[in-house]
């Protein structure tokens, strides 16, 4: 009897189809149909505060006790140990330059109850930046954050393949990567990958205004102009840049996942598409 139960439990986890779908397995992969006929903003995030959604800020750290950021659940940093190996260690340095705090403040303003975790990959010297970013991203995916905000990119082609693999891995693990696009004539990553949500800026002053771009690779435009963002020393700084448009989209995603935690990254992207400020109902 106990063996049968064990077998049954085992079967539940292991007998899910991987590479093909036998007829008798169809019942085992019934998935919830969560999208209504017309996806509205009210349906998507009405009443949501982002509660229960774990958001990772992959950046320069987050200043602790900043009034515009509030609670930070955990702070880690990617550091080299004495043997030169990269380690992810708990970190009490806060923010080394203000950029991560600014991004965290934007997410917090939109999704007040989201859980924030800081992964510090910037600001610890210029060298080895790409390796440190990759290690931090890998850790964030392992930790299964629902959203990872990446207001940064690399132009180093030697990292592209590994970064691409990580982005695809994240996509299938339901870790949504929200990445800043470039408005310069250079190739940079990961924002160019289809498995992430890439973000540029619009000029309007409303944080919930965002646009779908029908001519990617920049897929969405978030608020990125003239923002008072959280900065070092508990203060604010008036800034413009895609770095801050990105956490706006991340914050909206946190609201949506707070209400619909089972959405996959591709469903979430569809919900963003249908609730974008330029989306019109078909006539």
């Amino acid at each position, binding site marked *: 009897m106990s063996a049968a139960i064990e077998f049954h439990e085992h079967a539940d986890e292991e007998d899910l189809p991987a590479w093909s779908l036998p007829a008798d397995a169809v019942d085992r992969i019934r998935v919830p149909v969560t999208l209504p006929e017309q996806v509205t903003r009210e349906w998507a995030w009405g009443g949501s505060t982002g509660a229960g959604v774990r958001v990772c800020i992959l950046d320069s750290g987050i200043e602790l006790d900043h009034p515009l950021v509030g609670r930070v659940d955990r702070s880690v940093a990617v550091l080299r140990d004495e043997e030169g190996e990269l380690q992810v260690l708990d970190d009490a340095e806060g923010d080394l330059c203000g950029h991560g705090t600014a991004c965290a403040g934007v997410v917090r303003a939109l999704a007040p109850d989201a859980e924030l975790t800081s992964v510090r990959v910037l600001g610890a010297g210029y060298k080895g930046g790409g390796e440190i970013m990759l290690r931090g991203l890998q850790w964030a995916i392992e930790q299964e954050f629902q959203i990872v905000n990446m207001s940064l990119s690399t*132009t180093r082609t030697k990292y592209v393949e590994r970064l691409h693999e990580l982005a695809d891995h994240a996509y299938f693990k339901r870790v949504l990567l929200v990445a800043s696009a470039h*408005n*310069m004539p250079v190739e940079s990553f990961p924002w160019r990958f289809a498995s992430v949500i890439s973000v540029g800026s619009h000029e309007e002053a409303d944080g919930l205004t965002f646009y779908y771009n029908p001519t990617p690779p920049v897929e969405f435009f978030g608020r990125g102009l003239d923002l008072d963002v959280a900065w070092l020393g508990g203060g604010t*700084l008036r800034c413009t840049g895609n770095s801050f448009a990105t956490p706006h989209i991340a914050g909206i995603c946190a609201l949506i996942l707070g209400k619909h935690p089972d959405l996959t990254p591709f469903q979430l992207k569809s919900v963003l598409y249908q609730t974008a400020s330029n989306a019109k109902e078909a006539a």
Partner: protein
Amino acid sequence: MSDLEAAVAAGVLGADEAHRALLQATVEVARAIFGAKAASVFLLDEEAEELVFEAVSGEGEGELIGMRFPAGNGIAGWVLTTRQPLVVDDLSADTRWSRSQAESTGYVPKSMMSVPLLVEERALGVLQVLDRPPESRVKLREVDMLGLFANQAAIALDLLQRARRARAALAGEGRLAPLARVAARLEDDENDAAFELLRALERVLREQP
């Protein structure tokens, strides 16, 4: 392309100043277009992890060239590491940055546009435009324009660095220095025997595995 080939192809042995002039022209045009108090280009010294003033127009012109500060710090530092342009208005709110910058340059700007200088996959430095007119609110079109200036400045900076590497390779005790001296003599002397020897050397090198 090797540094020597670059040197020969571009005839850089006297071109350092021309590239510097191109960089200077870029910051001057950037400053004029944005109506700014100053514009500058910083070169990243990767070895020292420092940013070096390479061209300045406006406030600090003529005094700041060659001045260094740590690449990991400040707004220029993170523009470099995030590869993302940033426009900051009202820098007085950022006390940490203002103090360190004031100490090193003697000029504390109120606003700043910063953009990384990228050539292919390398980040070479940062272009900054300081203190646009206070009434001019930044528009995204300006950020895009800044990106275009950055592209131009990056190309100039790349040329300048190549010229310097080539000069270092060909000058003084550099391993290729005799080649440069030989080339100069050959041009001056028109020595047939020396040309014959040079062709022989080329054959030897070609026949080596």
